[in-house]
C-alpha cells in the first residue's frame, strides 16, 4: 500500500504539536515534557509505517504528494522520498524523542519554549529531507535555522550568544548564495522547459544540459551552502563553537541530523543537477574532504574539552562522507549514505554521554576526570562501546561505512589516484588515537580528583536513551544489509545521473 499523504501527515504531526503546545500553561512543565515526547513518538511510529511501506526495489521517488502552492511561479508543495531520504527521515524521528528524554532534567528553564523549538526543528528537518521542490527545500532549510538558533542561544553554555549568532550568520550567508543559485537555475532552465519552475524532477532532466561554465557556477553556489553545513574544511569554524555551547539535545540534533543536510544536499542537488561540474570538481572536493579528515582528527587530538573533541571528530567523520560522495563509485556512495546514519548514531550517542557526565559534574575538562571506571561502570561500558563504534571497529557500525568509502575511493575512476585513500585511512588511525586516549584519561587510572567520588552511575532513563542507539550501532555493524538495501537503488540512480546525464535538444 502506498499512501501519498503519509509524508504530509508526518510533517503535520510536529507542526500541529508545536502549535497545540502553545496553549498549554507554561507552569505545567511535566505535562509539556510528556506532550512533546508523545508527539515525537507518534512521528517516529508514523515514520516506521513509511519505512515498512517503502519499496526498496523502486528507484523513483515514493509517497509523492504534490499540489500547487504559488501558481504564478510554478512553485509546488511537492514531497516524496527515496531510500537515502527515508533513512535520514527515520534517523530524525528516531533521535528527536531520545533527545527530549535526555533533556528531561537538564533543561529546567523555559521548558515550554524548549519543547516548542524542538518540535519546530523536527518539522524543519523532516521538511528538508522530503522536499522535491527547490523552493520548498529552501523554505524548510531556512525555517530550521530559527529554532536551532534559539536552542543554542537560550539553553547554551557561557559563550552561547556568540555561538548562536555565528551559527546563524554563517549558515544564512551560505544559504542566501544558494537562493540566488536556485533562482538563476530556474530562470536558465526556463529556456529549456518553457516555464519558470523549481520542480526538482523537471530540473533533473534539463539542468545537466547546461554549459559546463554555467554548471560550475551553480555547483559552487550550491556546494558553498552545503559545505558550510557539513562542515567541510575550511568552512568548519562555526561548528566547534555551536557544538560546545549548545545544550546536549542541541548538539545531538546538530551532529545527528543537521550536518547530514549538507551531505544530503550534495547528493540530492549537486551531483544529479550538475553532473559535469561534479566530475570537474570531484578531486577538489575530495581533497578538501581528506584535509578535513586529517585536520579534524589532529585538532581533536589536542582538545582538553570532551565536547570539543567530539565536535572536531565530526569534521573528520563528515570528511569521509564527502570523500565517499565524490569518489562516485557504487561502494563509496553506499558507504557515504550509511556513514551519514552511523555518524548520527555514534556522535549523537557520544554527545549524549558527554552531556550526562556534564550534568553531574558541570565540567567537560578531560583533566578533571580519571579512573571513573570503578565509580560508574555502566557509563564506562557505554562510552567504550560508542567510542569504538566511532573509531570504526569491525563489528560495529562505523567500520561498515568507512570501509565502503575507502574501498570505493580506492578504485574510483573519477579520483583516479589512491593517495586520497591513503591519506583518508590515516584518519581512521588518528580517530583511534584521540578517542582511546580520551577514554584512557577519563576512565582508566586512579581516581585523583576527590570530587569524583560522589559520581553516580547512569539511571534508568539515561540507559533507556542509550540502549536503542546501541542496538542500531551493533545491528548496522553486524548486518548492514538491512539498511544498505534501502539506499541501494538511490545511490545507483545518483551515479547513473552523473555518468549518463540526459541528452535532449533545446526545445
Amino acid at each position, binding site marked *: 500500500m502506498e499512501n501519498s499523504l503519509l509524508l504530509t501527515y508526518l510533517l503535520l504531526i510536529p507542526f500541529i504539536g508545536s502549535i497545540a503546545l502553545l496553549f498549554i500553561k507554561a507552569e505545567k512543565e511535566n505535562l509539556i515534557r510528556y506532550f512533546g515526547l508523545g508527539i515525537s513518538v507518534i512521528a517516529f511510529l508514523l515514520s516506521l509505517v513509511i519505512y515498512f511501506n517503502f519499496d526498496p526495489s523502486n528507484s523513483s521517488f515514493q509517497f509523492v504528494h504534490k499540489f500547487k*502552492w*504559488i*501558481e*504564478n*511561479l510554478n*512553485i509546488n508543495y511537492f514531497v516524496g522520498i527515496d531510500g537515502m531520504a527515508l533513512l535520514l527521515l527515520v534517523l530524525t524521528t528516531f533521535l528527536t524523542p531520545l533527545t527530549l528524554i535526555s533533556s528531561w532534567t537538564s533543561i529546567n528553564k523555559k521548558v515550554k519554549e524548549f519543547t516548542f523549538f524542538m518540535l519546530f526543528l523536527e518539522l524543519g528537518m523532516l521538511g528538508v529531507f522530503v522536499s522535491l521542490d527547490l523552493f520548498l527545500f*529552501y*523554505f524548510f532549510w*531556512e*525555517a530550521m*535555522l*530559527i529554532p536551532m*538558533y*534559539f536552542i543554542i*542561544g*537560550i539553553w547554551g553554555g557561557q559563550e*552561547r*550568544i556568540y555561538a*548562536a*549568532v555565528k551559527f*546563524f*550568520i554563517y549558515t*544564512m*550567508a551560505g544559504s*542566501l*548564495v544558494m*537562493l*540566488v543559485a536556485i*533562482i*538563476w537555475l530556474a*530562470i536558465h532552465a526556463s529556456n529549456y522547459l518553457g516555464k*519558470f519552475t523549481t520542480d526538482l524532477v523537471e530540473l533533473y532532466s534539463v539542468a545537466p544540459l547546461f554549459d559546463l561554465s554555467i554548471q560550475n557556477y551553480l555547483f559552487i553556489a550550491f556546494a558553498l551552502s552545503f559545505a558550510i553545513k557539513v562542515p567541510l574544511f575550511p568552512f568548519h569554524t562555526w561548528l566547534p563553537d555551536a557544538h560546545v555551547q549548545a545544550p546536549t539535545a542541541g548538539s545531538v540534533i546538530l551532529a545527528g541530523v543537521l550536518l547530514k543536510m549538507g551531505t544530503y544536499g550534495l547528493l540530492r542537488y549537486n551531483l544529479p543537477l550538475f553532473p559535469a561540474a561534479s566530475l570537474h570538481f570531484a578531486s577538489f572536493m575530495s581533497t578538501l574532504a581528506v584535509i578535513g579528515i586529517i585536520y579534524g582528527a589532529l585538532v581533536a587530538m589536542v582538545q582538553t574539552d570532551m565536547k570539543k573533541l567530539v565536535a572536531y571528530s565530526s569534521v573528520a567523520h563528515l570528511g569521509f562522507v564527502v570523500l565517499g560522495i565524490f569518489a562516485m563509485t557504487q561502494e563509496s556512495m553506499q558507504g557515504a549514505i550509511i556513514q551519514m546514519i552511523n555518524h548520527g548514531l555514534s556522535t549523537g550517542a557520544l554527545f549524549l554521554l558527554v552531556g550526562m557526565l556534564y550534568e553531574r559534574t558541570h565540567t567537560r575538562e578531560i583533566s578533571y576526570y580519571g579512573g571513573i571506571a570503578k565509580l560508574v561502570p555502566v557509563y564506562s561500558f557505554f562510552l567504550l562501546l560508542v567510542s569504538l563504534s566511532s573509531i570504526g571497529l569491525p563489528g560495529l557500525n562505523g567500520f561498515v561505512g568507512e570501509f565502503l568509502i575507502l574501498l570505493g575511493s580506492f578504485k574510483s575512476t573519477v579520483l583516479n589516484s589512491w593517495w586520497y585513500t591513503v591519506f583518508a585511512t590515516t584518519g581512521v588511525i588518528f580517530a583511534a588515537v584521540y578517542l582511546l586516549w580520551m577514554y584512557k584519561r577519563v576512565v582508566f587510572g586512579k581516581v585523583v580528583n576527590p570530587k569524583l567520588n560522589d559520581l553516580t552511575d547512569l539511571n534508568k532513563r539515561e540507559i533507556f536513551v542509550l540502549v536503542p542507539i546501541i542496538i542500531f550501532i551493533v545491528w548496522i555493524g553486524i548486518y548492514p544489509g538491512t539498511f544498505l538495501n534501502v539506499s541501494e537503488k538511490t545511490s545507483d540512480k545518483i551515479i547513473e545521473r552523473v555518468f549518463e546525464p540526459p541528452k535532449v535538444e533545446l526545445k
Partner: protein
Amino acid sequence: MLNNIQEFYNILPLVIIGGLILISVVIEIYWDNSEKFLPWFSIIGFLSAGIYALIDVSNTSIIFQNMLATGGVVNIFWLIFNVSAAIVCLLSVNYIKKYGAYYGEYYIIIQTSVLGMMLMAGAKDLIMIFLGLEIMSISFYVLAGFNRKLSSANEASLKYFLLGAFATGFLVYGIALIYGKATTTSIDVISSNFSALSGNVLFLAGVLLFLIGFSFKIAAFPFHMWVPDVYQGSPTTVAGLFSTAGKAAGFSALIVTFGALFGGAYSHLFTPYLSAIAVFSMLFGSIVAIIQTDIKRMLAYSSIAHAGYMLIGLASGNIDGVAGIIFYLAAYTFMNLAAFGIVSIVEGKDETNLDLDSYAGLGTRSPFLAGLFALIMFALAGIPPFAGFFGKYYVFIAAIKANLTWLAIVGIISSAISIYFYLRIVVIMYFKSSESEDKPSYLNSEIIAVIISVALIIILGLVPGSFIDLITSFLK
C-alpha cells in the same frame, strides 16, 4: 470633470477620504472630546476607502482630463495606504496620550496625508504628482513636530521641512525642465515621445532632478540623511507612517512615471543610476544599522536598506520588477508597522525605553510581545515563511531576468549583513536578562493592530501567489 456616474464610483475612495477630512474638521471644531471619537471615525473611513478600492480594483479609467487614473495598481496602492493609516490610527489611540500630544487634529492630518498619497499613486500628470506630494509632505512636516513642547520633535520637524522643501525644489525644477522640452506635463504624452525627447540634455537633466527629488522621499542613499533624525524625533506611530505609507507613496509615483517608460525599453538609461543608488542604499543602510543603539534609528537605517531592495525591482525595468516592488511594499508596510507598533508599546513616558538595552529580558517579562517582535525581526531579515522573504525573492527574480545578477548578489550580501542587527534584537530580548521587571502595558487596540499586521505578514508569506497574480494582471 466627471463624465458619468461610473467615474464617480471609480474615485469613491478619494471622495470618502475627502469627506472624512471635512467632517473630521467640523467635529474637531464643535466637539470637545473629539480626540476620543476621531480615531475610530478615521479608521472606519480608511477601511471603507481601502476596501472599496479593493472591490473596485478591476475598473480602470482615466479621468479629470487625463489627470488621474483609477483602478488596477492604483487601487492596490490606495488599499496599502488606507490600511496602513488605519493601523497607525489604531496604534495611536493610546500612544499620543502617553506621548503628550492628545489632540484630535492628529487624525485629521493623517487623513490629509493619505489624500496626498492617493493623488500621487493615481497621477497621470506631473503636476498631479507634485500636488499629491505636497499635500502629503506638508502633513508629514506637521506630524513630525506634533508635540511642539518637545525640542527633539521640533528639531525633527524643522529638519524634515528644510530638507524636504529642498528636495521638492529639485523636483519642481526637474518638472520645469521636462516641460520646457516636452511642452506638456502629461506622463503618457511624455513617455510616448520619449525616444525623441531623450536626446535632449536639458530634458534628461530634468528627469534626473525628478529622480533625485523622489530618491529623497523614498529615503535612498545619498538622500537619506534626514531619515534617522526624523524617525527618532517624531512620534513613533508617525515614524511608522513615514516609513511605510510615505515610502509606498514615493515608490508609487516612481512606478507611475518610470513604469510608463519601461514598455518602451528605455530602462537602460536609468538602470545605471537606479542600480547605483540601490547598491549604496542597501549596503549603507545595513552596515550603519549595525552600530545603532536606538531602536528607532536602527529601524530608520533598515528602512534605507529596504528602499535599496525595492530599487532593485525598479532598476530591473521589467514587469516582474514592478510587481515585485508592489509586493515588497505591501510586505514591508506591514512588517514595519508591526515593528513600530511594538516600539510604541514598549516606549515609556517622555521618550524613554527607546534604546536597545531596554528590550533586554523582554522574552521573560512579556513573552507574547517578545514573540511577536522576534517574528517581525525574522520577517524583516527576509527569512521564510514570512512576507519579507517573498518581497526579496520577487525583486531578485526580476533582477536576474534583467541580466542584473550582480545586483541580486549585492542584495544577498546586504541581506546577510542585515541579519546581524535584526537578530541582535532577538538576542537582547531572549538571551540577555534585565534588572527591571517592568511589563509593558498595552491596550487591546494596540495589540490588535500589531496582531493584524503580523497576521498579514504570515498570510502574505504563506500564500503570496494570489496577491502577486492580482498585481501582475494589471501590469500586463
